[in-house]
């Protein structure tokens, strides 16, 4: 028996369903009862119940792309803050190969990098790398912090949300899965992106967001861009987005 509605806000310990239901992300099962472990929104898919958190810390996973800040230079590696309970390391070999060079010639404390999580071992040592398209040190621009769980919402289905922002503001935007966003463009456009990203973070759990963000962008840019998509497609986007989160 389902005791909650889809998209309802629930709290830790709240019983979501009894009997023949599966426990998905953000839930646990105790004595045939599926309970929420988080503050979040219920997502029901057939017999599987998940809770999409409204707030969380970034836990590194192999393959993720993250934005990190160099906090220390050591003998053969850099230490990085990746906005997580676990800090990352970037081994010198990832940058120089076998060549021996002075580390601070390449990156210094305070530099901000776009990196890939290469490995997370059993003692939670997070190894980072720079091999891949677009990875490396950022120059200029601004940083915005958002709750990592809101990242999929900011990106949107197949990048719809983020692409809309990029197109409208002509800014470069890079989103790390750890909730850090880098933006570079005209300074006034960077501020527009900052406002929009913060709104997406605050309203990520509400519906009709894509349309509201489109309106907000238009208003902020003070130019009447025509709506290119119909209501229906954006509704579909939201459904797809939910699907993505549950998986």
């Amino acid at each position: 028996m389902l005791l909650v509605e889809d998209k309802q806000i629930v709290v830790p310990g709240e019983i979501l369903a009894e009997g023949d239901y599966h426990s998905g992300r953000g839930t646990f099962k105790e004595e045939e009862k599926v309970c929420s472990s988080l503050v979040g929104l219920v997502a029901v898919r057939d017999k599987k119940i998940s809770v999409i958190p409204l707030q969380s810390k970034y836990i590194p996973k192999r393959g993720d792309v993250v934005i990190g800040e160099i906090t220390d230079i050591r003998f053969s590696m850099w230490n990085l803050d990746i906005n997580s309970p676990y800090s990352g390391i970037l081994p010198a070999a990832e940058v120089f190969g076998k060549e021996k060079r002075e580390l601070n010639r390449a990156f210094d404390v305070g530099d901000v990098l776009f990196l890939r999580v290469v490995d997370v071992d059993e003692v939670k040592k997070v190894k980072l790398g720079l091999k891949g398209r677009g990875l490396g040190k950022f120059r200029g621009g601004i940083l915005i912090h958002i709750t990592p769980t809101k990242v999929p919402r900011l990106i949107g289905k197949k990048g719809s949300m983020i692409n809309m922002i990029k197109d409208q503001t002509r800014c470069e935007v890079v989103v790390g899965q750890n909730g850090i966003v880098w933006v570079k463009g005209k300074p006034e456009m960077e501020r527009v992106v900052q406002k929009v990203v913060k709104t997406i973070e605050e309203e990520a759990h509400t519906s009709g967001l894509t349309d509201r963000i489109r309106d907000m962008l238009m208003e902020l840019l003070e130019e009447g861009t025509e709506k290119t998509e119909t209501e229906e497609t954006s509704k579909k986007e939201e459904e797809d987005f939910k699907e993505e989160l549950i998986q």
Partner: protein
Amino acid sequence: MVQSIVPEIIRESVTNLIKKGERVDGRALDEYREISLETGVIKKAEGSARVKIGNTQIVVGAKPQIGEPFPDTPNVGVLITNSELLPMAAPNFEPGPPDERSVELARVTDRCIREGKVVDLEKLTIIPGKKVWMIFMDMHIVDYDGNLFDAAVLGCLAALMTTKVPSTTIEDDEVVIDYEKMVPIPINEQPLMCTMAKIGGELVVDPSLEEDDILEARVSIGIRADGSICAMQKGGSVPFTHEEVLKAVGIAQEKTKELRKFIPQA
């Protein structure tokens, strides 16, 4: 306290914007964030206030106690200012005895309140040389979002202005306290403090957290209602020029006028 490292990108973007006369949060260089002030928030304290500047939040409580005056000032009451940068207020604030930042905050606030002659301390004498009122002002910093000094002075001033002590009489050299009859403590002046950060060679009023983190130098100036100066504190490792100091005084005189409207009406 652990010093936080500021990403170079943030330092650059904040600085570049200020050089153009703009700020990250859209304020003018000489503009305060939203300010709110409530008094009487703590019933157990004889005077109290909760002040917010932006998201910086301080709860101040004033508690009078009867004690002995200092030997060199037998006819003067005692004012003690204390602050706690609580570990709840910022991720890099740590539990433990007050660190140098916390002590600096308490001392600068104390100087502004004391030299600003807020309280007529001589009127806090009960028996000359023997008994005086000691007023303990405790600042509880619960949320740190930059610029503690201005919030601290505003909060302490408001707390003192609402502080009441029981009336006292002397019978046979003994102090008789009448808790039924509470009287406000004598307030003379109302100094306020304005803090400016030097970033990219410009002076910005009421530095936000980001600005506080990257500032080259900082100056806090206490101003009385008549525009005279009662306290100053420079912070940070970069010097000020002569012109900058004079300009800062001028700005502080203007901006404290605005702050004045938040002072509770006596």
